């Protein structure tokens, strides 16, 4: 249906001619090598948004064609930089008129190709929608625009003694809109929950250019939990234009502990024992020997370099409980043969311990030039067995793995470090990655804990879900977006995606599909 309407408009719409004429001057600065097929669309977008909010040159399109994953098949159409909800509506309207899909984009820090546009869609970048709109202390929320950076938000909230709880490793650059799209987590989600627990309402532009507010500030919004269904939908249900985030009070007391072990299995059994003892720390992070060594060289966090594994455990809350839980954790660690049990003496030491964890991915650069970061979840009681089998898989493929992950919730992040100049290494990296994913599922786990499915794991969805399950997920998506215009080609394997995608593909002369 979409392509038929588009074809009609392309032939008969008198406005198109005007736009073509207008574009000759307006798009000069921005569209040096714009695909000729995009000319009318670009002109239309410039008409609606202004020339300084539209880019269609090859450099801009190249940058918007991928995210932080190794996926390189993305192909962006014009990139829009809206500054208001009305601008986003105009972007969607123009895309609809020209029969094009829409791909929302935050900071592009995603690791699963979710923001890699497929089929040359109109890319809606939220980077200029980065304002903190209001802080409503009485209702415990703040309204923000989607392009606000996660850490900037928490810094802006600091004077109120509150913060936004999800803290992904990319928090100094990633945006709240991206967090909503990916249902992002982070170390402190163990106790506080992932993004969906911290979003109360979302204003979104849907694929028919209508604006709707999903959820509200009440305890239980009327009707289906549309806000809950939207969070984590990887840009496939609409473009978020404003988000009401929950304000989490800063904890009155915090204790950060570094536990080092001579054996990975002792670290893993410590994790299980802490949880089994009825303690829910704010975070339990684990790093294995290779990771500890790389991080220590890079960040001087104070980890013992000879340790087989280091646990970073943080408890927070009222002071009395923090002291009790801290002591219990130390006892558990010692009972599990910890070589070092150290409690950060002050804020400086605490910051240093966390700096090590948070710079782990940067530290890999000292080990190998390239890395592929995985993200799967396993039952936390199976950590020891899964880690042993990951080492076995990686050895067999003659690769190097660094493990740095959210041990408290069983969320693994095996990081395969390699040098892409070595012939055949990429194939080995992919083969090992495949085995790690399948191992995680075989152990009763999940494909992804926080990075999302995107294009990276789209074709594994059949492995985790039945045809009926995927059909149900497809219904959720198509209820929001019956036209399948929003970020098409992601998450669901092609047999469960909308039929419109093939129409889009046909209309996409130079499109490259993943």
């Amino acid at each position: 249906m979409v392509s038929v309407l588009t074809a009609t408009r392309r032939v008969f719409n008198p406005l198109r001619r005007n736009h073509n004429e207008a574009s000759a001057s307006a798009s000069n600065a921005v569209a040096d090598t714009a695909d000729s097929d995009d000319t009318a669309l670009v002109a239309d977008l410039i008409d609606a948004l202004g020339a300084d909010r539209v880019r269609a040159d090859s450099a801009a399109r190249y940058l918007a064609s991928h995210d932080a994953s190794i996926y390189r098949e993305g192909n962006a159409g014009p990139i829009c930089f809206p500054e208001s909800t009305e601008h986003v509506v105009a972007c969607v309207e123009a895309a609809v008129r020209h029969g094009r899909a829409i791909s929302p984009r935050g900071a592009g820090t995603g690791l699963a190709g979710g923001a890699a546009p497929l089929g040359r869609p109109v890319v809606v970048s939220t980077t200029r929608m980065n304002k903190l709109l209001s802080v409503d202390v009485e209702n415990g929320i703040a309204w923000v625009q989607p392009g606000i950076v996660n850490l900037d938000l928490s810094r802006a909230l600091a004077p109120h003694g509150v913060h936004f709880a999800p803290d992904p490793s990319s928090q100094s650059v990633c945006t709240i809109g991206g967090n909503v799209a990916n249902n992002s987590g982070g170390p402190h989600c163990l106790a506080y929950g992932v993004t969906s627990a911290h979003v109360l309402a979302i204003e979104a532009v849907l694929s028919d250019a209508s604006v709707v507010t999903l959820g509200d500030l009440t305890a239980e919004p009327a009707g289906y939990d549309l806000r809950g269904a939207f969070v984590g939908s990887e840009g496939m249900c609409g473009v978020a234009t404003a988000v009401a985030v929950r304000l989490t009070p800063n904890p009155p007391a915090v204790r950060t502990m570094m536990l080092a072990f001579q054996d990975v299995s002792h670290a893993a059994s410590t994790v299980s024992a802490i949880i089994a003892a009825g303690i829910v720390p704010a975070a339990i992070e684990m790093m294995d020997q290779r990771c500890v060594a790389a991080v220590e060289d890079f960040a001087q966090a104070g980890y013992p370099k000879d340790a087989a594994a280091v646990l970073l455990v943080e408890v927070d809350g009222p002071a009395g409980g923090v002291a009790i839980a801290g002591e219990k954790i130390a006892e558990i660690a010692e009972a599990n043969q910890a070589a070092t049990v150290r409690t950060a003496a002050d804020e400086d030491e605490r910051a240093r311990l966390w700096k090590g964890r948070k710079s782990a991915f940067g530290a890999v650069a000292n080990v190998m030039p390239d890395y592929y970061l995985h993200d799967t979840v396993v039952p936390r009681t199976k950590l020891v067995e899964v880690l042993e089998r990951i080492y076995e898989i990686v050895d067999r493929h003659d690769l190097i793995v660094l493990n740095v992950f959210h041990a408290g919730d069983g969320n693994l992040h095996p990081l395969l470090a390699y040098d892409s100049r070595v012939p055949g290494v990429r194939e080995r990296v992919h083969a090992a990655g495949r085995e790690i994913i399948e191992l995680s599922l075989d152990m009763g786990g999940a494909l992804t804990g926080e990075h999302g499915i995107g294009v990276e794991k789209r074709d594994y969805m059949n492995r985790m879900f039945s045809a009926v399950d995927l059909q149900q997920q497809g219904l959720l998506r198509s209820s929001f977006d019956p036209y399948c215009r929003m970020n098409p080609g992601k998450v669901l394997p092609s047999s469960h995606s909308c039929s419109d995608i093939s129409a889009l593909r046909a209309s996409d002369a130079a499109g490259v599909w993943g």
Partner: protein
Amino acid sequence: MTDHEAAYDAALQEFAAEVGPDGPVCVRGGATRWALGGEPTSDTREVNAPAGVVAFEPAEMTVRVRAGTTVSELHQQLAGAGQRTALPEREGGTVGGALMVGESSIARLGRGAVRESLLQACYVCADGQIASGGAATVKNVSGFDLCRLLVGSLGTLGLLGEALLRTFPIPESERWVQLRGADPAATKACDTAASVLWDGSDMWVLLSGYEPDVQEDMNRLRDCSDASAPPELPSHRWICTPAEAVAFGDYATSVGVDLSGRNGSSGRFVAEIGVGVVHASVPQPQRIVASGVVELNRRFKQRFDPSGRLNPGRDPLKKT
């Protein structure tokens, strides 16, 4: 039968067979909130969801339980390992009912919302097939979030057969205290308040945590006295924002309900401070919902249940 289908146990498969592929059908749980969102039409066939705890893993802090199990029975089993869920306990109320109704317990401040409890759902779709959403892990973002969609849906999108729920440790110390003539803001300084109830003059607070912290909060609250239980709650449950709950009289007036004009207990209310739920003796007028949201609700229902056979007559937009 595919591998995925074979993975469902006999109880689930029998439930799916009972639901079948056609005809209006609904599940009767404890019927504690039977009329919420409308009663099923008279031609609707009632079925029962299977019952029983399938697997409890204290070290995972999860429990797999069949929808027909009562919440009290579930909590009794979990208490053996010092854990529980966020689901509210109502006399005879079932796990499936609590999830499909989606109303939080009065201790939501401390235990979280019901919608955050459901990690994996196995349910019977409108065509009679079994589907599953979510994962058997505490963290998961694999695909679209069907669990969130199902909680509070009143069984209008699918009939829940089995759930994997998040559990959490029961704090070492829990006690209700009462303050007379208190300002709702007084509890802001409390770190361990898991529930704050206010009837316009008196306040009841559930302190919940490690004993020293609970003691500390009791010192902060000064004139509080031990209360054996929370106050009796008026029968109608209003939904509003936390700010509206604190100024409940004004809020009620703004939607056309005059509480001050009523005599004695008829104007009574108990507000959940910090949450936005108020228990009042008169019903809340129908909430106004934007047309775009109504349209989306219609689309979801139409897609998930094209023939309208699941809980016909019920509408989650009309819960109050």
